[in-house]
């Protein structure tokens, strides 16, 4: 962690590289058709920066996130991660090592918390995969990470249903931080939240990035947020990579029709931040 914060050290260093990543789903049925959810994806993520991934619903964003998290097996291609020893293929990394480096906040803040577990148990669960902890120690650790995301003792013993949407998303973030990862994949972390809460979570994420030197892969529908939040953007359409570049360049000067369509479908929303949620029209247009 300290290494990351050192100015200059590792600047412009690629920490995650995706090469030719493909995912084919076989649709159910005896002669199941093949469905390409992800096609020849290439990308590189720089340390301490934010890469946004945008695209209409069903364009394969979550699939990509799950492949990078090794929660599914790619049909082809590879994902490599920078360790101290250099770039390593995640397929060869043991889970313990992989999930120390990279964590994910899932799309649905409601479904991603086990309704039968108390918050302290949920937040400290990742740590139990790395060391033996007593109940007291688990609660202490959980409290530490909850405080990092602006929650506190009041939520420690609550069950997920007792929390608001924004609080749940904070719990999700706290859990993702618990293994002290360097890379955080945020799968539409704002889409289930209302506007005022969205702004709070964005600020929280920006603070965390500044304090912990995190690298983000930020999946979103919302181009206004992307513009405010990300350094680079990857545009996807039905599993294909449409465009990739610096946010300013891609959003000011889209090279591809599809990007332009995405931009047009959010009229007047590129300038001011306090924004509406998910642009439903993105989907309709695409």
């Amino acid at each position: 962690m300290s290494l990351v914060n050192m100015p200059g050290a590792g600047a412009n260093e690629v920490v995650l590289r995706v090469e030719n990543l493909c995912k084919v789903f076989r649709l159910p049925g005896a002669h199941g058709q093949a469905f390409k959810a992800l096609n020849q994806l290439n990308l590189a993520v720089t340390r301490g920066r934010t890469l946004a991934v945008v695209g209409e619903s069903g364009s394969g964003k979550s699939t990509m996130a799950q492949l990078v998290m090794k929660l599914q097996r790619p049909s082809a291609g590879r994902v490599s991660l920078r360790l101290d020893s250099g770039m390593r293929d995640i397929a060869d990394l043991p889970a313990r090592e992989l999930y120390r480096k990279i964590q994910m906040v899932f799309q649905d803040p409601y479904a991603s918390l086990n309704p039968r577990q108390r918050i302290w148990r949920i937040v400290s669960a990742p740590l139990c995969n790395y060391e033996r902890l007593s109940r007291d120690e688990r609660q202490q650790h959980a409290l530490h990470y909850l405080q990092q995301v602006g929650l506190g003792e009041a939520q420690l013993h609550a069950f997920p249903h007792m929390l608001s949407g924004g609080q749940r998303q904070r719990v999700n973030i706290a859990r993702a931080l618990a293994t002290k990862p360097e890379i955080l994949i945020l799968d539409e972390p704002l889409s289930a939240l209302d506007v005022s809460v969205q702004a709070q979570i964005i600020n929280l994420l920006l603070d965390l990035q500044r304090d912990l030197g995190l690298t983000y892969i930020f999946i979103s529908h919302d181009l206004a947020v992307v513009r405010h939040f990300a350094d680079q953007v990857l545009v996807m359409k039905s599993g294909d990579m449409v465009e990739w570049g610096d946010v300013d360049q891609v959003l000011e000067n889209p090279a591809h029709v599809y990007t332009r369509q995405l931009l047009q479908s959010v009229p007047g929303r590129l300038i001011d931040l306090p924004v509406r949620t998910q642009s439903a029209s993105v989907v309709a247009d695409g």
Partner: protein
Amino acid sequence: MQARIAIGFRLMPGGWGNIGFLVLVSLLLLGFIAPLLLDLSPYRISAELLAPPSWNPLSVPVLGTDDLGRDMFARLVYGARCSLGIGFVVVAVSLVIGVGLGLLAGVYGGWLDALIMRLVDLLMCLPSILLAIVIVAVLGSGLGNAIVAVTIIGIPRFVRVVRSMTIQEMQKTYVMAAFASGSSRLRVLWSEVLPNCVPPVIVQAALGFSDAILEIAALGFLGLGAKPPVAEWGAMLADARPFIESHPLLVVMPGACILLTVLSFNLVGDALRDRLDPKLARL
């Protein structure tokens, strides 16, 4: 301490189930405490054969004696101990095996799932008592083998409910989140999946208890389970058959005990099901 009491109350299944629960608790006390306090022997033979019940709680053979002069009350009490004890063993063993198989089938899927589920289908395609007879016929008759047979028959109910719960749970995002934090499959099963299986498994256990007791009694009655001197309700029923016309109470008493126990377990099971597992409630 307060938590203890609260848990005690939460065990009460509610509605008619409470009555069943109380009956079972008193049977349990009768079967396991009464022999310690009273001088009861299910085997001691007195000179009085086929004595009628006195209905006087102070007289010694309260419920009379059977054809060999054995105290009926003592035999019924020991029968309760036998049935509940066997029921417990049967349910415990079939629960552990069934839950294990259900988890395996649900998690791994594929050929393992197919294999386990075909075995379960095989066990479920015959009426259970017929199947018990077949298994006892293969293993040889006797109380031990009857217990094994009833245990085997008890397994499928647990496999089915746990497998379907596991398949459902494994799709949940929070299970994926657990994998994403580096949890092993075993840990995910233990801390995320299994806790959600507890309510339906408790329901199945209560219903399994009643089936096990009924089947053990049926096997005893058919002479395939407990053998004559043993005080077991089914075997007592069989012993009393020749006297069904002259001394009907000899048949009625063990029969009523079986009925009461099975009914109580069913009441408890159904009440628990309504409370813990609304999805499974019978229509």
